[in-house]
């Protein structure tokens, strides 16, 4: 199977049915491996229980498309011990499907619990970008990549609350981590858009500060508003601002391998098959523009 390049979609319960009718709309499928098994926790003797029906679906898709891996369970920034069992399970997943791109989130979603167990926060938080955390994080990323047997790529998260008095900005932190470890960056444009909608920095300021040569993948998505907060809920089509960002930034990422559209399956009825096709067509137009640019240069 060839590499996961071009236009991708994040696997959910709708995707197999959609792709059965619209085979050529994507070039790869990005799977969240944690949706394929039950994880009984670090203290369990038989920790992982595969969900056969879910693996069956991915097996069928893998016959048609390259598979990329998008983890949500590692919590690379947790102060608890690096979860090497979890990394080994991700490695098994990657080996099974010949995955050559493994992404995870730059942040933490678990905290150390009693007796070595972890307590899940219930949501993901960004890391404070401090000097001492940088050196600590570099060691964890290097260890993680050793277990995975390939570079990991880290995604920028959303910030609903500020982190004050940081030693450096998040782009500076990610640049340093990527330079030292060789990891890549997954640039989530909708997360930048959500931060800006909620009073955070302008997305282009963030992008200008990021070394785009480390960006291997871009995520695009839609969101929704809860109360006064705009959320990265993957609630349907991308807002126009995200398309503008994609057109601006994609040509400046020389090692970009894929543009992945994320949507939550519960919102699919709002978008429908034609709406989803339109999102993927728009993403492909940007991607084909990159191809023409590469031909010229």
């Amino acid at each position, binding site marked *: 199977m060839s590499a996961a390049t071009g236009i991708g979609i994040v696997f959910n319960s709708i995707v197999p049915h959609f792709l059965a009718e619209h085979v050529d709309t994507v070039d790869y499928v990005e799977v969240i491996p944690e949706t394929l098994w*039950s*994880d*009984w926790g670090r203290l369990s003797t038989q920790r992982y*229980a*595969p*969900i*056969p*029906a879910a693996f069956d679906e991915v097996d069928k898709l893998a016959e048609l498309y390259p598979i990329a891996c998008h983890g949500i369970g590692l919590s690379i920034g*947790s*102060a*608890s011990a690096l979860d090497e069992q979890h990394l080994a399970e991700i490695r098994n997943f990657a080996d099974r499907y010949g995955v050559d791109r493994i992404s995870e989130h730059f942040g*933490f979603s678990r*905290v*150390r*619990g009693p007796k070595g167990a972890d*307590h*899940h*926060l*219930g*949501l993901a*938080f960004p890391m*404070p970008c*401090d000097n*001492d*955390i940088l050196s*600590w994080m570099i060691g964890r990323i290097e260890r993680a990549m050793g277990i995975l047997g390939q570079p990991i790529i880290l995604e920028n998260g959303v*910030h*609903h*609350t*500020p*982190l*004050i*008095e940081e030693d450096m900005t998040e782009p500076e932190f990610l640049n340093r981590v990527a330079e030292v470890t060789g990891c890549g960056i997954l640039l989530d444009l909708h997360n930048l858009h959500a931060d800006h909608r*909620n009073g955070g920095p302008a997305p282009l300021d963030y992008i200008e500060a990021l070394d785009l040569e480390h960006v291997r993948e871009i995520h695009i998505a839609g969101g929704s508003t*809860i*109360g*006064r*907060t705009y*959320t990265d809920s993957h609630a349907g089509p991308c807002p126009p601002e995200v398309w503008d960002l994609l057109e601006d930034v994609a040509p400046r990422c020389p090692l970009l391998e894929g543009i992945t559209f994320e949507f939550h399956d519960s919102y699919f009825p709002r978008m429908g098959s034609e709406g989803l096709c339109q999102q993927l067509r728009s993403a492909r137009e940007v991607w084909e523009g990159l191809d023409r640019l590469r031909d010229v240069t």
Partner: protein
Amino acid sequence: MSLDGFQRALADAVASPQRCLELRRDGSLLEKYDLNDRERRRLLAIIGHEGMSHNCTLYRANRLTPLARSLPRTCDLLGDRLMHELEEFWAREPNTEVQFKLEAERFAHYLSERCNEGAFGDADQLAAVLCVELSDLDRQFGLDSHF
């Protein structure tokens, strides 16, 4: 670096809007955590920010989602009682579990205890609906109950 204390304090706050309000009134409540001065200021800035209410909302939404998707008929049957039972369940089980099946089984276990306590007039009906939905989950996940 006392990242562990910082993350624990944040986790405790996210899980409890009441605790956030208490911390906004009295920052010294953070003294039980191992924090340096910068982390203490950082936490108080987070907790005092209007976005913290959204963090608390997301926490509760992410705890509710596994139950709503795995045990929809049980949730329907509980009706107006659901919110009270969720608050009580979350108080008894403060550790978040994002594995849908495990969280559904923990809630089912809690409801069974409540039935035994005589909390529900329709305990027999509730137990029957739970039994059906847990069986469905076992089939969906292809494995037996963890409990």
